[in-house]
């Protein structure tokens, strides 16, 4: 399924896999807890990757998808007593619908580039203000799920089981991403990113592809939001729809390598390692990890335009790439 074209990439991925499996053997609740958080963000990063990576539709408001997934599930569970799994599916569906709706609206009017980023950001703000203001969404005090460990409630008393569950989900979303990448839909998305006019000439309904991408991204993003809710059993408007969610969504893929299968996961894990390291070194200061993320982002934009995966790709490329010029 994966096409790797350099030893650098193989090494990079092996290190990540070794780390993810190593967490089972290092019996440290700190490492486990921190990696659990990183895995949820990785799902969000994979969500951003669909639109921002493959489609070149850079969103600054992915919190709108994440928050909608989390809120939909929370309202269904808290207010209507719906089963957590049903609520999970509903959260994913609702986020996909919101993604598709925003896409349909924005692309109908030809919104592109930076304007698309700003439109998504504004939508996230509208949803945040609504969530903070309406009582059915818990208003200012947020929503709290009842603690009820059990598979049927998607609540895991055992951290190892929880970790395995999340790892499986990340793998699943990566497989879906790989499927997208090597499908007609993925090829069309890349064509839209690279040259929309040429794509239209080749018979691609670019509007439909972009809206579809927003919906798929919404489904992944909603899933990430629901996972957060199931882990912490609590959300409020700024946790779910806050700007930091949108920032985390885009930073991982850009640093790891946008439009790749491994990039968003590698980027997110790498960033969280840096952030966690800084927290340990510089006491537990709020926000400092974000300062580091931003510095890394600037460096990445400057020095590795294709992210970690692209950088690693230049280390020991396989001979196949060097085929003769004709």
């Amino acid at each position, binding site marked *: 399924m994966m096409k790797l074209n350099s030893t650098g990439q193989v090494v990079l991925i092996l290190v990540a896999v070794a780390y993810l499996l190593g967490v089972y053997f290092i019996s440290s609740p700190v490492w486990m807890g921190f990696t659990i958080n990183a895995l949820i963000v990785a799902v969000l990063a994979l969500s951003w990757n669909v639109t921002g990576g493959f489609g070149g539709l850079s969103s600054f408001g992915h919190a709108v998808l994440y928050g909608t997934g989390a809120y939909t599930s929370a309202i269904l569970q808290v207010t209507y007593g719906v089963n957590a799994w049903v609520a999970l599916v509903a959260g994913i569906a609702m986020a996909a619908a919101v993604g598709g709706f925003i896409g349909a609206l924005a692309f109908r009017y030809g919104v592109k580039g930076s304007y698309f980023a700003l439109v998504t950001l504004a939508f996230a703000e509208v949803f945040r203000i609504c969530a903070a203001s309406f009582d059915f969404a818990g208003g200012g005090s947020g929503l709290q799920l009842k603690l009820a460990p059990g598979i049927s409630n998607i609540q895991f008393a055992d951290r190892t089981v929880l970790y395995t569950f999340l790892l499986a989900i990340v793998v699943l979303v990566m497989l879906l991403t790989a499927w997208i990448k*090597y*499908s*007609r839909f993925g*090829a*069309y998305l*890349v*064509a839209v*990113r*690279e*040259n929309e*006019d*040429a*794509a*239209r*000439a*080749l*018979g*691609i*309904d*670019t509007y439909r592809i972009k809206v579809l991408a927003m919906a798929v991204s919404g489904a992944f993003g909603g899933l990430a939001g629901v996972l957060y809710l199931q882990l912490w059993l609590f959300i409020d408007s700024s946790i779910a729809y806050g700007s930091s969610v949108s920032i985390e969504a885009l930073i991982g893929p850009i640093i790891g390598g946008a*439009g790749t299968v491994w990039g968003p996961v590698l980027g997110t894990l790498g960033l969280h390692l840096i952030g966690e390291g800084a927290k340990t070194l510089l006491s537990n200061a709020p926000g400092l990890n974000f300062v580091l993320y931003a510095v890394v982002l600037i460096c990445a934009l400057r020095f590795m335009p294709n992210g970690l995966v692209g950088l690693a790709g230049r280390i020991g490329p396989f001979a*196949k*790439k060097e*085929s*003769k010029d*004709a």
Partner: protein
Amino acid sequence: MLEVENLSKSFGGLKAVSNATLQVPEGSIVGLLGPNGAGKTTCFTMIAGFTKPDSGSVRLRGKDITGLAPHHICNLGMIRTFQIVQPFAGLTVEENIAVGAYLHHHERKEAMAVARDVGKRLGMGTLLDRPASALTIAGRKRLELARALATGAKLLLLDEVMAGLIPTEINEIVGIIRQIRDEGHTFLMIEHVMQAVMSLAETAYVLNQGVMIAHGTPRDLVRDPAVVEAYLGHGAAQRLQEDDHA
């Protein structure tokens, strides 16, 4: 195969194209000539659905396609290429061609097989695995043609597919276009390279300042005073004749 009637388009006060009419019979190669700014590309964008004409009609195999979106028109078997060729960077040559092939082959395996086949037919067999961004201009022009062919379109609108190429490259692409035509395709091509048009096109139209000023075989057209004036300026035809007699 293609019938364009009285196509007009204005931008603000400027009449870019007025009442342009042309026919492209099946299996032919038709040229669309004219000096810079004559409205050739505007004509193409209207025919291919990228801009809506103010008036006039476009019919493909008798079906009215005026104002249809480009992707619908492509589905009906007509496709345009672009003057400034931009391959999809980040994809290989093969994957680029496959984007075209996906139109009628939804599975990756089939689309890639079609892409390889088309690529080989256009002499790009050794380039298939290379990143498209690494291609030379000539390679990019070929890729543009390959992508268009891979969609299965039967009528190809080529916008200056030879501009910027050296003579040997032009000869190669002329050969390729002939070969594709003999396989059952039809061409309407905007071209500046007269040598290419002369050897390829059976008939050609000349557009000047948005108006069709002449139509005929390329051989007749180069002798047409109106055409010569359009290219070389007012009075040029007469001066040329005088030179001939002197």
